[in-house]
């Protein structure tokens, strides 16, 4: 399998009024073409900023300092010209954001936003062609009455509907890489399972690679081929999904697994104090081991 995304020694800091905050301390992470990779870990540990660096967005933020290598499909994102990076977004790579209601544009209808996205790949598409394709995609993510939805504004839809709209929009141009930041959180579990299965089938069919960011370890277990665990800006564990779940090697990963609430209802899990063991070196699992 060829490597699609190849991140090496990625570092990020923010410059603010109160000095410099280091956020990423040398992240290495790779994704093969068509591979589904999950990134899980602490809130605030740097998952979303990694996605925004891959998209080339943080490189254009003045307060952010990014160093290291971000190889995508043979090119180097960090040194690319801003307009070349912009051309990749929404075509070769696309993103599902954590907060769908605020990442959809509140002043345009869903139909308008679909057309805008599709015309990034093919500027000559007619509106009728865009609408037809949008309805097809919305049906695929099980949105009822998709033709009505095209005329709606985001505020007229529920949180979960907006999230499915985002998923449909992100996949409409058949990107090589999908960055999915918490794609299922606003969905009920039935629709979530269905949406993830669908996302799974779509990415499999088109050979789309996925970086899947989620706090829901149950969902990760069902969706991803491989998992990276991040803690305070460092990768602490990496391996095939089954192997990491059956045999978590790092203290932080173990604490995380133990803290998952269970539907069998043992009460809220005891939460260990942050321990020095969480800062132990990275644990790597062999490929193919389970």
């Amino acid at each position, binding site marked *: 399998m060829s490597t699609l995304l190849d991140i090496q020694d990625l570092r990020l800091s*923010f410059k*603010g*009024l*109160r000095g410099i905050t280091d956020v990423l301390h040398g992240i290495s992470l790779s994704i093969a073409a068509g591979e589904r990779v999950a990134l*899980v*870990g*602490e*809130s*605030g*540990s740097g998952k*979303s900023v990694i996605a925004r660096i891959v998209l080339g967005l943080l490189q254009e933020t003045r307060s952010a300092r990014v160093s290291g290598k971000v190889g995508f499909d043979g090119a180097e994102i960090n040194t690319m010209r801003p307009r070349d990076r912009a051309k990749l977004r929404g075509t070769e790579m696309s993103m599902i954001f*954590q*907060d*769908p*209601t*605020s990442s959809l544009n509140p002043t345009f209808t869903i139909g308008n936003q679909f057309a805008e996205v599709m015309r990034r790949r093919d500027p000559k598409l007619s509106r009728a062609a865009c609408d037809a394709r949008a309805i097809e995609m919305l049906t695929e993510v099980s949105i009822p*009455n998709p*033709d*009505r939805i095209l*005329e*709606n504004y985001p505020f*007229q*839809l*529920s*949180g*979960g*509907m907006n999230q*499915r709209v985002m998923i449909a929009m992100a996949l409409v141009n058949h990107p090589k890489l999908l960055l999915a*930041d*918490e794609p299922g*959180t*606003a*969905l*009920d*579990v*039935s*629709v*979530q*399972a269905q949406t993830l299965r669908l996302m799974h089938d779509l990415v499999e069919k088109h050979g789309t690679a996925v970086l899947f960011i989620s*706090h*829901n*370890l*149950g*969902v990760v*277990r069902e969706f991803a081929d491989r998992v990276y665990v991040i803690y305070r800006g460092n990768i602490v564990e990496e391996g095939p999904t089954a192997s990491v*779940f059956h045999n978590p090697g790092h203290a932080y990963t173990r604490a*995380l*697994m133990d*803290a*998952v*609430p*269970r*539907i*069998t*209802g*043992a*009460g*809220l*899990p005891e*939460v260990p104090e942050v321990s020095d063991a969480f800062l132990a070196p990275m644990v790597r699992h062999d490929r193919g081991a389970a």
Partner: protein
Amino acid sequence: MSLLTVDNLSKSFSVAGGMVHAVRDISFAVERGECLAVVGESGSGKTTLANMLLGILSPTSGSIRFDGTELPAKRRASHRRAIQFVQQNPLSSLNAKRSIGASVRLGLDTYQIGERAQRWAKVEDALEEVGLPREMRHRAPSALSGGQRQRVGIARALACDPELVVLDEPTSALDVLVQARVLRLLNDLRTRKKLTYIFITHDLAVVRNVADRVAVFKSGQLVELGETAQIFTAPKHPYTRSLIGAVPVVDDAELDLRNRLAKGT
């Protein structure tokens, strides 16, 4: 007397191409000090219900009584303070131009809570209680992670000394360790300050471990309401059963329970 009583509540919206009946003839009561979970289909009317409880939307028909009095469409400040909201979308619910500290402080100023000179300290206490560093109050919402913003939403609501808190997916953006910590904190505060929660979420494993009772919504209707243990071991409505049968799980005991419910035994 129940703290909150909802009678025959309905809400419809007119949209391009017709009407949406978001909430249809719902009745239930919430006791003081309890945690009632509201679960159900995406788009089933949970947030719409929350918006009506908060006075953000007015019902098409039906009534809402709080502590014995019927709530008017236009709420008085005392009621707005007493019923607080933690919103589903932390980013869009925080003012982008204000520091997060100023957002938390706004409630304290509006409802004249505490001495003016002590309010910044109170803001920092509120942030600290949800596990955020005190100095974070100077930051803009855009400089926070999703989970950090979500905790600001919780801090802001709790700082106002409410009686009833409507929490719409309050921990969905948190890792499970921080989530467990925040849920424990919410539980402690509930006991300590005699708070009442309406907890809207899709995370049934969380519901199992925090709620006293569960209300299940589907297509704007309340299809089942029961004690948490009963809902999870002997759900009556087929929709409840299918919902629990779809929960992503991590261990074998959970898998057993899920399979048993899926088979309907």
